[in-house]
């Protein structure tokens, strides 16, 4: 197993730990999605195929830990990662803005059911998707900053593996 896979595996475990912790102990109706933020950053760092594969896996895991409809989150994450794979965003501001927009899309898509339409009314949907997007942007900022620092550290050690 190469070092890149090990590092990705480590990141995945950290994100899963944080997601489970927040789902169980965060005293709020809305919980940020660590998986979504991580997948978006993976794509921007050039790991598109890995991100698509992980979108499927993390989606299933998220549905299991949150008692959701199995497969639903996978579909949403796959669509978001696929769309995002056409964007090349380098700046932190651009990335945080994208996290905000994609988080809103993720939340709104999660409450759509064919052929019934949206399961909440428009105002409520907008209000909660904004809160969710705001949470994710804050979390996304910290993850992005910490990952940037890690990248610089690896670069300095000449062990940079495009994470």
């Amino acid at each position, binding site marked *: 197993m190469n070092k890149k896979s090990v590092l990705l595996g480590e990141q995945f475990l950290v994100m899963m730990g944080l997601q489970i912790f927040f789902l169980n102990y965060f005293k709020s109706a809305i919980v940020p999605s660590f998986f979504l933020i991580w997948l978006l950053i993976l794509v921007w760092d050039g790991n598109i195929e890995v991100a*698509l594969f992980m979108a*499927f896996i993390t989606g299933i895991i998220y549905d299991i830990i949150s008692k*959701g409809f199995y497969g639903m989150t996978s579909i949403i994450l*796959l*669509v978001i990662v696929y769309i995002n794979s056409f964007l090349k965003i380098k700046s932190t501001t651009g990335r945080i803005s994208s996290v905000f927009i994609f988080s809103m899309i993720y939340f709104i898509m999660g409450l759509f*059911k064919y052929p*019934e339409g949206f*399961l909440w009314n428009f*105002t409520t949907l907008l209000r909660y998707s904004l809160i969710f997007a705001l949470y994710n942007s804050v979390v996304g900022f910290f993850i992005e900053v910490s990952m940037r620092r890690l990248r610089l550290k690896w670069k300095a050690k000449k062990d940079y593996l495009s994470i």
Partner: protein
Amino acid sequence: MLWRFRREVIFIVGFLISFVIVKYHSVKIVGIENQHKQEVKIVNYEELIAENIRLKEILDIKKDTSLFKRIVVGQIVSIKPVVFPVEIIVNKGIDDGVKENMSVLSKDMFLIGRVTKVDRNTASIMTLFNTKSKISVIIDKTREIGVLEGGSIPLLSLRYIPSDSCVKIGDKVITSGYSDFYPKGIEVGEIIKIEKSHDTLFLKIYVKPFSCVSGLEEVLIGE
């Protein structure tokens, strides 16, 4: 050739697998649960005791209730979304006598919603929070009839109560019995906000449901 379109290939394959899982998830969940029940010999006794207490409470309620001819106890296997669920799937279906439009209640006999779709072993429940949910209700004290609508999470909006009504914050809301789905007298929630509007003949009333759907494990399905 395929390597060039690897992004699209992974996306399509992942999407199709997820779609198949979504399509058959309820059957699979029930299948796994049943298999699990047969195979697992070591049990978590604390969990078993807690479940036993919950089911005993439900049994007591079943003995007391006069609202329904028949009650089926269903275990929740899936909820959507995690916060303020609008749809629930339970492990009881046609084989257990569950039919469409049966009322669904919490173990404290508070209204949760109604059955909208039934399969052999599972039933899909539309909760009060769903935008499609419209229930005919009566305000306990003033006896005025209104329609309780979902969608305005985390509250429910009570419509068609005239602006000269004597309704107060804290008044209970119960089912009216005028609809085909719910019998009369099931407690739904209490009024927590009243707004008067000059451009309409009706009050804008918000109701907080009694049942905490997110924390439920078992539900009562009544006919």
